[in-house]
């Protein structure tokens, strides 16, 4: 009686271990199957928009479009949207146009920069001055070369 009980218990333990191992193996197998599915769906890392010198061409605006102080445009480069403008003093500036609040594109309005989605306002330095934005806009160094505009990688600015 005792013997057979012991045997059964040992048998159960063995079966449990076997099923446990099988469970682990199945999970590893499912993981192996799901990994390619995940990689298929996961976005690929975008190409670096800046060249070896750390600069990238601005699309959608030329130097002549914003030749006068107080002129500005929404534009962009491979790395995202920009507002490119001249301050009333005539300085050329480029800021990321992605509002730090909810990601809408901001608009240059002469003396300040506005976001129409939730009413955020930034000054011409890109600093958030009113409304919901929590942070300033990223500022890029911008330069003109042969009528075209280029922005530079922020850490090299």
């Amino acid at each position, binding site marked *: 009686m005792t013997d057979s009980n012991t045997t059964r218990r040992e048998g159960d333990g063995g079966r449990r271990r076997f099923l446990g191992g099988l469970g682990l193996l199945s999970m590893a197998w499912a993981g192996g199957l799901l990994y390619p599915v995940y990689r298929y*769906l*996961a*976005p*690929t890392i*975008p190409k670096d928009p800046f060249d070896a010198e750390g600069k990238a061409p601005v*699309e*959608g605006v030329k130097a002549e479009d914003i030749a006068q102080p107080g002129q500005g445009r*929404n*534009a*962009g480069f491979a790395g*995202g*949207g*920009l*507002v490119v403008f001249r301050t009333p003093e005539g300085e050329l500036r480029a800021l990321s*146009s992605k*509002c730090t*609040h*909810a*990601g*809408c*594109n*901001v*608009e240059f309005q002469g003396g300040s920069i506005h*976001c*129409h*989605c*939730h*009413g955020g306002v930034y000054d011409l330095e890109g600093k*958030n001055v009113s*409304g*919901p*934005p*929590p942070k300033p806009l990223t500022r890029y160094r911008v330069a003109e070369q042969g009528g075209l505009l280029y922005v530079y990688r922020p850490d090299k600015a």
Partner: protein
Amino acid sequence: MADHMHTVPEEALKELPPAHKALGKLGRALLARFPVWPIVDFLRNKKVPEHRHAAWYMMGGLALFFFAIQVFTGILLMVYYRPAEPWQSVQRIVMEVPYGNLMRSIHHWSANLMILTLFLHMFSAYFMKAYRAPREGTWLVGLALLGLCMAFGFSGYLLPWDDLSFFATNVGLTEMEKAPGLGPWLASLLRGGPAVTTDTIGRFYVLHVVVLPLAVLGLIGMHLLFVQIQGMSEPDSFAALPACQKKHKKFFFDYFASEIPVWLAAFALLVALSAIWPRALEAEADPFGAAPLGIKPEWYFLAQYQALKLFPGKLEYAGMALMGIVPLLCALVPFFDRAVPSDRRGTWIERAGVALLVGFVVLTVWGWIS
């Protein structure tokens, strides 16, 4: 009778038309081949309590009716919609395809009315305390369905690829990105990259026309099955009545028949709204352009939109936490309510429900007029 045929139960024979009539013959022939009488019997069991709040019971069926319209018009829109040239193909539906503008507008209005009906369904279940044990499962599945329907709205909104859809998607995904934990990962997976592009459309399209419909159909099945098994909930005032005063209507087909005129009226309203206020197609999305003035989300996201404006700077996270906590509290209500009529918790749940309803309406109206 051949031995592999089934005997038609006595009960069924009583219900079926006489054997010499065509329908009676067909019924007997079918039941002899498919012994499904227990299923028929199970379905016939459903009965609807009759009381002065009973009109609210119509909301679930009405939402299902709008969902059927969504499936039908959605299939029609898919015939011409091209995810590779989204705005152009929607413009073609609106400008060139006969009745295309009508089909698209019905899809738009039916989505809105479906969400509205679901809100009414949810609040009526809440105030009639239909979520109480043993119906926690039905309540939770219902909440999940409301969430999925809002995801339907959000994913469908991007597909026309106009100014409104582009920035609405930007805002939604940016908020998701700021959520702690899986937020950034999920936002990037949905967006398909660091910015909203036509790659995002592919993902939203698949969600909108395949993944969400399958999920919603499965959950609707569960929701209805739970109601069928557990029977309809009776509000306290009705449950307290003596048995002889409780009146019920059989769901099949007495109550069902009474729903049909309501659906027809809803359909008439739907077509009228679509004809009078067809859904506009804004300018094609310009990923570098500024967000247009006066941009606003659909009404069912206006409360969140207004809350986003009200919590500036670092307080933003407080606003987001509030938005996350409301659905969580809704999910926990059945486990908090001890279902004792005299219990003070019941009163608190009612007050919280009124506060939620008033808060939602106030924020929505405020967002609308501001």
